[in-house]
């Protein structure tokens, strides 16, 4: 799991949400084309002629159905891709637990950590201890 997958997942979730909303809203929006007037009553005869010369073209029920089906199909594809990303990102992977250590020897006065650590010097002096050197030193 890394941040790349996390980003993909978040993007996919937003896209799915957006498409779901559009799936719901689109048919309503299309259905309004028949009921509502395209323009307000005009004052001048010229404008009246212009309005009358371009009658509204309502979408046929089949076209509406087609658009809805297309939106559903795209949503489904996006959903499938996001599921793949989730799986790849291992986001819903199970939790891991370690049995607690019964007794520990408190070192250097630290009650949370006794100083079990590793260090690296990634810049600076020429005689630096890098991670690899440190491992060689220890072995």
């Amino acid at each position: 799991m890394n941040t790349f997958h996390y980003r993909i997942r978040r993007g996919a979730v937003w896209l799915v949400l957006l498409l779901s909303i559009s799936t719901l809203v689109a048919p309503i929006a299309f259905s309004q084309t028949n009921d509502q007037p395209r323009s307000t009553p005009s004052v001048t005869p010229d404008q009246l002629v212009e309005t009358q010369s371009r009658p509204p073209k309502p979408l046929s029920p089949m076209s509406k159905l087609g658009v809805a089906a297309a939106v559903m199909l795209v949503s489904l594809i996006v959903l499938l891709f996001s599921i793949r990303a989730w799986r790849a990102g291992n986001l819903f992977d199970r939790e891991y637990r370690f049995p607690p250590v019964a007794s520990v020897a408190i070192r250097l006065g630290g009650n949370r950590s006794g100083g079990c650590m590793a260090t690296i010097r990634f810049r600076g002096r020429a005689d630096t201890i890098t991670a690899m050197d440190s491992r060689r030193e220890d072995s």
Partner: protein
Amino acid sequence: MKCPACRTVFSGPVPQCPTCKLSLLRLDAKFGAVPRHTRYLSDRSGRLPLREIKKLRALLRIFEKKFPQSLFSVFVTNGVPSGSISEYAFWLANRTGFSSIEAVAGDNFDLLLGIDVEAGMAALIIGYGLENYLTEDDLQAALAVAENAFRAGDVSRGIRECVECVMNRMREIARASEAHKRVGDLVAAGANNR
């Protein structure tokens, strides 16, 4: 185990380093008040872009989700006054409230990555609870993975690589430990049936 200050190797419950006399109380006197810090990641150097901080916090949140006992904290600083990052990391791991108050001794499964950008040094330290599972070699390997990014000045990439490396290693260890336990249970059940 090595002393965070002089790297003297010691074992057992030593109250202070046999060589340099380092102890948590001495570090309290040295570093004074606990610095301001936030959950998951604290950037006191001001070098990490906000966008990167957000991404890293998201990654560290995922880490905690996978290992609910563990909190992986990162502390980036622009130099440790009169000390080294290893001393500072040891002090921070014990003194800051990164994890819960109850997470002490064998119940502390936390990790802290301290980075001194100015000195070019990093230290990765674990709580007592993880000592039975993660070795110093594992920690060194995680830092080695991040070394190139740190050297190139890409601190956020280095942190990410280090966290991901530890995450993978801990997952491996947890799975192996569970498999081992299952085998043990089966053997015990077999012995009881006989």
